[in-house]
């Protein structure tokens, strides 16, 4: 178990460094930071001066190592637009995004798991077909469109919920649904498939032969086994969701890290964009790492090996 964690951690770290290198290179090759910094009206000489001042004329690898060295210490440079340290900007915005992510995955799990279990108990029943329809439709629904429809119905027509902002828990209801539904189909399908497989296994028959009630059989004996892969999927989805929060935050004007990313890209604020790509990648890496560890811990076969 410890060896497994150590190996997995090593992989996570190497992946993190590679991602940081790629994201740095990508933006380095794609744009001229000096020109972006100088603004549209700057002359060629101004741009040259800025290039020298910020060290953009040095070889790329040197610049990367320089950036990386600061980055691991939590210093991502200064935002071109806000003229503030990028790290404090991001930290300030992260709470909204994290709240949204946690609400989203909770919503997804609370709807998808019961639906998947219900569908597996009665395959081909009405509820199974309904769940299947929901998951197929959910996968095809563009999230920005879904968000706008919710706004039209619940904010404009019915006036029940605020259309944008993040000042109260009410503001998080629609964004949570939009972000959460994104992870729902996969979780539901995996729960259903897992439950179907487990319910036909011999140890479920053993549990029934012991005289366990149907509820006990379903939840204590079956779900406990079927939920193991769902847990790790949920963690992976959580990583994806944080990366996807950019769309949701822009629709509902939630000023989180995703919104910051959107603004910064539009403003050519490269240090902020670079840092955000790295931060979102780190979230994914950390979540998948935790998922694997949790998975190993939940499964006795892996725990003891």
């Amino acid at each position, binding site marked *: 178990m410890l060896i497994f964690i150590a190996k997995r951690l090593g992989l996570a770290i*190497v992946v993190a460094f590679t991602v940081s290198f790629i994201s740095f290179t990508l933006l380095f090759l794609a744009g001229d930071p000096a020109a972006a910094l100088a603004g549209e009206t700057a002359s060629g000489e101004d741009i040259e001066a800025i290039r020298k001042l910020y060290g953009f004329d040095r070889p790329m690898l040197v610049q990367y190592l320089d950036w990386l060295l600061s980055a691991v210490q939590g210093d991502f440079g200064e935002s071109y637009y806000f003229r503030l340290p990028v790290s404090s900007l991001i930290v300030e915005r992260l709470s909204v995004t994290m709240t949204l992510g946690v609400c989203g995955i909770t919503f997804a799990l609370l709807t998808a798991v019961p639906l998947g279990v219900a569908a597996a108990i009665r395959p081909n029943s009405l509820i199974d077909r309904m769940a299947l329809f929901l998951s197929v439709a959910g996968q095809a629904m563009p999230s920005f469109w879904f968000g706008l429809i919710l706004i039209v119905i619940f904010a404009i027509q019915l006036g029940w919920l605020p259309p944008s902002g993040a000042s109260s828990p009410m503001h998080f209801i629609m964004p949570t649904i939009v972000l959460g539904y994104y992870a729902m189909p996969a979780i539901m399908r995996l729960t259903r498939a897992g439950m179907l497989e487990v319910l036909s296994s011999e140890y479920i028959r053993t549990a029934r032969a012991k005289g366990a009630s149907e509820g006990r059989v379903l939840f204590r004996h079956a779900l406990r086994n079927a939920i193991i892969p769902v847990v790790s999927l949920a963690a992976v989805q959580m990583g994806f969701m944080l990366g996807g929060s950019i*769309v949701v935050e822009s629709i509902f004007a939630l000023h989180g890290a995703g919104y910051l990313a*959107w603004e910064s890209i539009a403003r050519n604020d490269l240090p902020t964009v670079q840092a955000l790509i790295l931060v979102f990648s780190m979230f994914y890496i950390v979540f998948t790492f935790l998922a694997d560890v949790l998975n190993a811990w939940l499964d006795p076969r892996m725990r003891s090996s």
Partner: protein
Amino acid sequence: MATTETNDPLLQEITGPTPAQMLRKRVFGHQGLLIGAGVLGVLLFVAIFAPLLAPHDPYAQSLMSRMEPPVFLGGSWEHPLGTDHLGRDYLSRLIYGARVSLMIGAIAALISGVIGTAMGVAAGYFGGRVDMVVTFLINVRLAMPVVLVALAVVAILGGSLQVVIVVLGLLLWDRFAVVMRASTLQVRGREYVAAARAIGASTPRVILSEIMPNIANNLIVVVTLEMAHAILLEAALSFLGLGVQPPTPSWGLMVSEGKNMMLFEPWMVLIPGAVLFLLVLAINLMGDGLRDVTAPENRS
């Protein structure tokens, strides 16, 4: 006696339908696959014959007839689905928008398919170090937030149709690599591959004529899913104003433009979004259907 004879499962197996007949039966017995293929066929037809079908020029502005409602909301048949904020015919823009979406979906899936399949097959076939490198690259790719990276790169390079297609193509190869690697691993151990190697077939020949045909069904399923993925991503990028740029008629862009008028004219958001939903739904239904009818466990 005769009754027990004909009921025999062994006999039924011998005199049963041929594989082709069974496939046909499964295809035509699969509602989702039929619906998906039907809708996709119609949209493909519309996209190909857009110039013949569109009642107006999708780019022609008319300041005199701005934001006319669709015919079912009291508009005229001149513009069956109304006009946008610049007076452009909504139906014509939708019809041309089908071209944009399908083109992006198809070409991006082609690019990522070539990259991902090459990596996946190499990893599955050669194993060892190659496999380690590919698996590592897949991990790295999955760790990068697609929307964010695509947005940033497209924003810097400029949001032309070509740039969006290439960027999406270069980003969406992960699922191809994962699925093709697994499929190749499965097929590699089969007897016919060993037989081909035993008679001295070269590696490219084994891959092309023994491995590829046997993993093609999985490849087709991933192609459909990634096509849908690319279409949705393009729409999201364009919606955020950092993808395909105006005046190109992209459905995501149309939703974005309609968003400002959403309070008074919600149809401007609903119509392009609904078409987008329909297209992606059709492709997904077809992909799921293809997986169902070609899945080995269904071949009994």
